[in-house]
């Protein structure tokens, strides 16, 4: 059974204070790892897909990296508008079209 664990559960940052979110996964044959951002009361917004170890993707202040066991979402010099819950999900070869989500990391960036 695919498993995804995100840490920490919550993260409070000062504006400009860079940090990283962790997503550890156990899957049988990774097809893809996904990062989403979710604002309160809204649907998840797709950020990145990573397919293989060593791959990196960047978007504005966010950078996602992938190893064989975990992924990191680095937030560089965050702004208050980066406050959100960040969800990690995986899809495995055995899972067909189904994502397995982690529990999410709630990020609060204070000005």
């Amino acid at each position: 059974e695919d498993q995804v664990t995100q840490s920490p559960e919550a993260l409070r940052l000062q504006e400009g204070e860079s940090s990283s979110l962790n997503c550890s996964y156990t899957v049988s044959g990774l097809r893809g790892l996904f990062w989403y951002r979710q604002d309160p009361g809204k649907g998840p917004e797709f950020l990145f897909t990573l397919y293989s170890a060593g791959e990196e993707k960047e978007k504005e202040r966010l950078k996602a990296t992938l190893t064989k066991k975990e992924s990191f979402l680095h937030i560089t010099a965050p702004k208050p508008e980066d406050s959100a819950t960040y969800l990690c999900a995986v899809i495995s070869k055995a899972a067909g079209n189904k994502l397995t989500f982690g529990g999410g990391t709630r990020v609060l960036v204070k000005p």
Partner: protein
Amino acid sequence: DAMVIQNPRYQVTQFGKPVTLSCSQTLNHNVMYWYQQKSSQAPKLLFHYYDKDFNNEADTPDNFQSRRPNTSFCFLDIRSPGLGDAAMYLCATSRGGQGSHEQYFGPGTRLTVT
């Protein structure tokens, strides 16, 4: 812009009164999903359609049904809502097959059961 649309955004229903939530997409994706998300939890998959093929999750209650009359639309029917069914319901789509597996979510419908 291509997108996933959910209506209504907020729905209030009475205990036991059937309710239908709708989802439409302009992405022309093969796969449509319905998730239930409760406060501070990850989305929980209820079922999905790959084209016309329906795939139910083993732990989805029989109270929840779905219809996909065409590629663009998908409906979630809750036959007899209980207080525990109050949640955010999310629709998502993906291309499916050998293509990319990213799922794109709609804005959600917040269901309140009184």
